[in-house]
């Protein structure tokens, strides 16, 4: 889910004017040097609470609210990011709450909260230092305020559990008692941070803040926004990407019960009604004629055939070259060649794309589940033709993200478009599931050809990888494409950890009209599958054990080797598997973390796969919330198993053939019978991602186990295409 989304581009020249007009709820606004943005006036207060740095609000009753810049998608960022701040703040965790930082204020004040981008498993790893410093700065300000009241030097005072103590005199004050004074103090320019051995909150499995409301139906998602006078909208977009609307017979539905407005766009029709079912029924009944455009004949087979030309093309860019792979392959005693392929995939967040917008009194407000607050507000402002200061985005916890709700804000734009046509009326646009599947930004297709060479002793001495794929960045952030290479697309190959003297990675980009996007783990959904299965093939050719074969090749990548060894040990790799049980193993590093997976499975009737056990070893450096990390491993395993078995988007006559969970099945309860063992092996000293890495090695471990069980090497996904199903 890595994506564009730094905060450059905001017009800083407007800032002076904007700050004057900044109406902040409370009164106590002070400055802070932590984080980004305007250093002199950064504290953000709230009614009744003192803003101590822009991150922390302390109320007189000692309630601490931590501002969260990233989004809660179910991965636990609301809690984990607050843990980082509070580790240094030394407050009482029982008094802590979290809330989203205001998007409009963030933009007006030069990205006051750093970045709101929630993708690429980066929330913790990219903001941990800033947040720990913010907590430390706020604590110092509170301590200094207490010390000033007592007339003692701050160094004689300490803070713990939300209480400041002057040891010599035994006097104490709570954070709440001095919050207002603390907020008026100078922000310390420098703060000292605790070392890992002193951490108490970091590493603690505290319950997530967002969970209680998610069990009672009280959690408000974008789909659940209810405002006075709210209307509901459903949309139908041109089925063939790039097509246009030719005509729509609006009169056919305009008298229908509850229908308030029909909006006809260049490539969509939308109906706004007093009830979503009425809107959806009307929009589906509306007679439309599309101009499918130039892509009306494109099929998946045609796209794959073009990728094949990429596999054969001469003169394609080189992403990495070590030694002389070609020459070594030409004369090696043992050479293996294999082609692999992976299809388009849809995100299928369980909450379909949804946004609510209200255009009133010259201001636009949007309520949306987003992975990228900056992208949402920019898209809304651009669609409305408004300056950013007249727009605000209210972030809501998203019903799944997985990369769909980041850089791509198509649904936000559409909701804004509808709201602008109905001034004063909030409009809630919810895509039908059918639109959601047919108008996604898809995990792109890729074909690869791998060639590997072994010497007489079975040592791996050379390999070549030719990738032919559709690039995400060429579509989403073209400036990031370098010399014809998508740097995200070559991950797991160009940066592979294996110490093989001769290696060439070439890359042929073949774009299509199907819009590509970041999908949970992005290139690490398929590249490690190709790589680790191919290595398993090499092991078979060499007659070597897959763990023993990799060991010397990973000697220079000790963290990769360590997780591989950990997974092997946990699964009992060196001992015989139980009767009828077969094993596969794979390793991958992704998003700053290191992971290996071992799978145990049985196969009945040569096609019914019973996955018994999935071990995932994960080294993410420091673990902030171990229970949340384990949940990400469990979810990642389910995600990977479903992807490998079921998921495939196909194109016919230029459009996506699938439309709902019937023809785009995802993993179900009865298929998740495996014991999932999350083996956290944090080695410390770094902060790796967690939302995506745990799934990276699973598909390869699964397919390697499948080979062990059946002798069938599956070189394309999904497995259902090869006749397999889960038990």
């Amino acid at each position, binding site marked *: 889910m890595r994506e564009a989304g730094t905060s450059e581009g905001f017009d800083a020249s407007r800032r002076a004017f904007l700050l004057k007009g900044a109406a902040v709820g409370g009164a106590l606004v002070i400055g802070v040097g932590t984080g980004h943005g305007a250093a002199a006036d950064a504290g953000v207060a709230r009614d009744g609470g003192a803003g101590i740095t822009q991150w922390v609000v302390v109320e007189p009753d000692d309630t601490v609210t931590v501002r969260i810049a990233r989004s809660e998608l179910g991965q636990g960022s609301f809690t984990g990011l607050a843990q980082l701040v509070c580790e240094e703040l030394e407050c009482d965790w029982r008094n802590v709450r979290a809330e989203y930082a205001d998007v409009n204020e963030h933009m007006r004040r030069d990205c006051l909260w750093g970045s709101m981008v929630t993708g690429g498993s980066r929330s913790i790893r990219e903001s941990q230092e800033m947040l720990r410093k913010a907590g430390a700065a706020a604590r110092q300000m509170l301590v200094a305020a207490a010390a000033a009241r007592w007339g003692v030097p701050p160094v004689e005072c300490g803070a713990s559990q939300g209480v400041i103590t002057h040891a010599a005199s035994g006097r104490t004050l709570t954070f709440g008692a001095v919050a207002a004074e603390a907020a008026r103090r100078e922000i310390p320019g420098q703060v000292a941070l605790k070392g890992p051995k002193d951490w108490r909150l970091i590493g603690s499995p505290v319950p997530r803040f967002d969970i209680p409301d998610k069990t009672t139906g009280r959690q408000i998602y974008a789909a659940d926004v209810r405002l006075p006078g709210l209307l509901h909208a459903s949309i139908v977009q041109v089925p063939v990407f790039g097509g246009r609307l030719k005509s729509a017979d609006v009169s056919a539905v305009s008298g229908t019960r509850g229908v308030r407005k029909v909006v006809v766009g260049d490539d969509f029709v939308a109906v706004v009604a007093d009830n979503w079912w009425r809107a959806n029924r009307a929009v589906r009944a509306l007679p439309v004629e599309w101009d499918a455009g130039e892509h009306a004949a494109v099929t998946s087979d045609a796209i794959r055939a073009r990728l094949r030309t990429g596999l054969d093309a001469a003169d394609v860019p080189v992403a990495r070259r070590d030694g002389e792979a070609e020459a070594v392959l030409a004369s090696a005693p043992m050479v293996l060649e294999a082609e692999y392929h992976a299809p388009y995939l849809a995100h299928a967040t369980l*909450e379909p794309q949804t946004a609510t917008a209200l255009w009133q009194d010259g201001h636009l407000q949007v309520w949306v589940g987003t992975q990228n607050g900056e992208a949402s507000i920019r898209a809304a402002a651009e669609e409305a033709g408004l300056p950013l200061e007249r727009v605000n985005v209210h972030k809501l916890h998203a019903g799944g993200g997985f990369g769909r709700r980041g850089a791509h804000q198509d649904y936000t734009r559409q909701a804004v478009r509808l709201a602008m046509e109905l001034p004063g009326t909030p409009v809630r646009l919810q895509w039908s599931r059918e639109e959601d599947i047919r108008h996604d930004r898809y995990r792109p297709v890729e074909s690869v050809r791998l060639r590997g060479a072994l010497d007489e002793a079975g040592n791996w001495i050379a390999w070549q990888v030719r990738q032919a794929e559709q690039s995400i960045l060429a579509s989403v952030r073209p400036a990031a494409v370098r010399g014809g290479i998508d740097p995200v697309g070559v991950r797991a190959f160009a940066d592979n950890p294996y110490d093989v003297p001769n290696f060439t990675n070439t890359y042929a980009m073949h774009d299509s009209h199907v819009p590509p996007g970041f999908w949970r783990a992005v290139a690490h959904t398929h590249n490690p599958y190709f790589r680790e299965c191919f290595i398993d093939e090499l092991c078979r050719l060499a007659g070597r054990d897959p763990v023993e074969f990799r060991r010397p090749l990973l000697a220079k990548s000790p963290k990769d080797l360590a997780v591989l060894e950990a997974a092997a040990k946990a699964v009992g790799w060196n001992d015989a598997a139980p009767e009828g049980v077969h094993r596969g193993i794979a390793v991958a590093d992704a998003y700053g973390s290191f992971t290996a997976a071992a799978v145990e499975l049985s196969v009945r009737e040569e096609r019914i796969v019973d996955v018994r056990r999935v071990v995932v070893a994960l080294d993410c450096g420091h673990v902030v919330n171990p229970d949340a990390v384990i949940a990400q491993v469990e979810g990642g395993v389910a995600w990977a198993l479903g992807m490998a078995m079921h998921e495939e988007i196909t194109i016919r006559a230029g459009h996506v053939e699938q439309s709902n969970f019937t023809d785009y099945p995802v993993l179900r309860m009865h298929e998740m019978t495996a014991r999932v063992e999350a083996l956290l092996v944090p080695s410390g000293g770094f902060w790796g991602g967690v939302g995506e890495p745990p799934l990276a090695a699973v598909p390869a471990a699964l397919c390697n186990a499948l080979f062990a069980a059946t002798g069938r090497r599956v070189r394309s996904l999904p497995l259902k295409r090869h006749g397999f199903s889960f038990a």
Partner: protein
Amino acid sequence: MLEMTVNGRPVALDVEPEMPLLWVLRDELGLTGSKYGCGIGVCGACTVHVDGAAVRACVLPASEVAGRSVTTIEALAADDLHPIQKAWIALQVPQCGYCQSGMIMSVAALLASTPQPSDDQIDEALGNICRCGTYVRVRRAIHALAAESKK
């Protein structure tokens, strides 16, 4: 006028008889705890109880609910929290949470009829989709509830 009982309260509605119960609940009555995920009875996000049985509200016409009693996630607990909700919190089951209203309503119906379900019975009863993949914890929480009820 269509009459039914929703969460213990009688309601009278002027809606099309074919309007699915889900939209009666969400858009006419403002009960947004039940979710739309697929609209075709496949994902279970919309699961509610009608006369105590778990049903997919997105494909159940309002006319078929006339005179019957509907319970949604908002009224699952008689007071503070239902034991299932407590177990869900204790085992930290939800991720994004969007499926969980329906998941919990399905589990409530299952445990009401089968207090100690086997894994097969769980699989049978829970066709609910969780895109976040919380299945492992859902199963664990059901077994924990079953063990609790044995005591």
